[in-house]
């Protein structure tokens, strides 16, 4: 039993690393991402920065926007490289090989997430650094460990959500594309990527909190710009941290259950192998 558990654990870890690998090395082999993933988001950030400057907003607002711009990379990664990924894997024939392998599906999703986090963090750092240098953004974190903690917890919850979405997308075909499109812009808006989410009102912010980036961004802004956020904070940082932890555990739990359920359903309906639907 102990040997089995050890073997299973090793297979789990090897699977996760095996699936993360393409994303980790892929970045170094496709340098063109620099243009698309750093320069283009920076243009969008620039639009908001110049609006804030034109209306004479305090310089911290530039920081809000740059931070939001960096975090958009994660949301894009969740939609296009986590949620809809199993659909693409089905189209290329990888999904069948994932399914028949004697390994945990959660390990495969974890590998996708870890690889995605690595690749996206480099992109997000690119946007953040470029934003800080180009727009001279002031940064004065009250607590670096707390900031890192919030950031990591946000990623856990966010990628847990990505895993849950991936299991739902297991069943869908081309609809996956449309659904991912549908989620992209509205979440940019309601999660407060370019402004403190409280500006949308408490209830809208509460609803938007189902997307962990909403709480994560608000908490990170409070830790970076405590004085400016006093009038805009949605919830206290501690509450947001707790909520992120609950979301993370909840999403991972439901992802595990949903993955098993939808895999069985897809096998019954013959959708695991049906391409081009």
């Amino acid at each position: 039993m102990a040997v089995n558990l050890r073997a299973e654990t090793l297979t789990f870890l090897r699977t996760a690393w095996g699936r993360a690998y393409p994303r980790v090395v892929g970045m170094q082999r496709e340098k063109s991402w620099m243009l698309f993933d750093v320069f283009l988001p920076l243009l969008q950030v620039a639009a908001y920065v110049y609006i804030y400057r034109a209306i004479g907003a305090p310089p911290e607002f530039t920081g809000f926007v740059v931070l939001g711009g960096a975090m958009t990379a994660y949301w894009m990664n969740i939609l296009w490289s986590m949620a809809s990924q199993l659909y693409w894997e089905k189209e290329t024939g990888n999904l069948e090989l994932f399914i028949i392998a004697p390994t945990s599906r959660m390990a495969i999703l974890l590998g996708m997430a870890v690889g995605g986090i690595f690749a996206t963090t480099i992109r997000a750092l690119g946007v953040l650094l470029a934003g800080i240098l180009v727009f001279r953004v002031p940064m004065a974190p009250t607590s670096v460990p707390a900031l890192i903690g919030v950031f990591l917890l946000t990623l856990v919850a966010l990628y847990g959500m990505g895993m849950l979405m991936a299991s739902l997308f297991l069943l869908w075909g081309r609809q996956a594309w449309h659904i991912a499109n549908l989620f992209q812009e509205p979440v940019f808006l309601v999660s407060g990527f370019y402004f403190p989410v409280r500006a949308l009102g408490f209830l809208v912010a509460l609803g938007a909190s189902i997307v962990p980036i909403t709480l994560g961004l608000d908490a990170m802004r409070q830790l970076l710009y405590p004085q400016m956020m006093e009038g805009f904070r949605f919830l206290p940082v501690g509450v947001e941290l707790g909520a992120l932890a609950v979301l993370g555990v909840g999403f991972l739990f439901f992802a595990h259950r949903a993955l098993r359920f939808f895999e069985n359903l897809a096998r019954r309906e013959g959708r695991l192998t049906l391409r081009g639907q």
Partner: protein
Amino acid sequence: MGAREFSIETQDLTRVFRVKRREARGQTREVVALDRATLAVERGELFGVLGPNGAGKTTLIKILATLLSPTAGTARVAGVDVVENPWEVRRHIGMVSGGESSGYGLLTVEENLWMFSQFYGMRSGEAKKRIRELLEVVGLADRAKTKIYHLSTGMRQKMNFARGFLTDPEVLFLDEPTIGLDVQTARTLRTFTRGWIDDHPDRTILLTTHYMYEADELCDRVAIIDQGRVLACDAPAALKRGLQGEAVFRLTVDGDRDLGPLLGRVDGVQRFAHAARDGHTELDLILADENALVPVLTAIQGAGARLLSLEKREPTLEDVFLRLVGRSLTEVSEGGGEPPR
């Protein structure tokens, strides 16, 4: 003691798909992909499933590989029920499909293979050693460091083959593995497959194909399948022996002619298939005996056709299929029946 060990057993295995009707929105119709298929494949066998496109071969493999649930019937792989315990089945199987485009283009051949080895929990060092050996065997060693989006179809399929054999699975499913490959690559892979099963008598391969030649050359036993039903199952030689009381001829007549109605009326013609080729018509005939040839030739002459060639052939699996189904395998597979020998 002495009881036969079956690696694969199916009993009345059936799969029905519901597909949308084109003509009636919102309505579905049922398509029977596999119809009460019963098979038993012994450990150590290279077992072939021969049939035209759409015969149910891939559906059978998908069910056995735990990718698809059967609608009815049972299937066991390595002694484990595929519906009750798919997880356990997966510890024993591997699969390679023809025309597969699996893997990630940005990774090299050896990186892709290493990635798949990790899903089986192989140690990295052991996996890399095995990958080198397999790439050598399939003739892809010089491409180990090539990113797979630079590979040709044949090279990619060699890589897929290497992946299938990487974990030395107890039961390996090869679904049309040489489809679309050039002659040389197909031959390399067939030779490797036969060699592997000969060297590993405790392993089993189930291979589906619509290439008659491939099934004949490679397989210990062959099941002939059409429209989801298993029509016959035996060693290729035994299947062909079943036709030895009959006479098998191939005739070529000038022009593109439909001689079907004419031949259908000639006594002694058991089965026939005709195909247009290079401006002529090629006829494959199974006759009750050689005496039936004279009325066939008379009828052809009476129709104004000129006989260009006449050949008496030894029966092939193609003839067995024709005898069982009433259509030629090549004809049903719409040009896909030409084997890449």
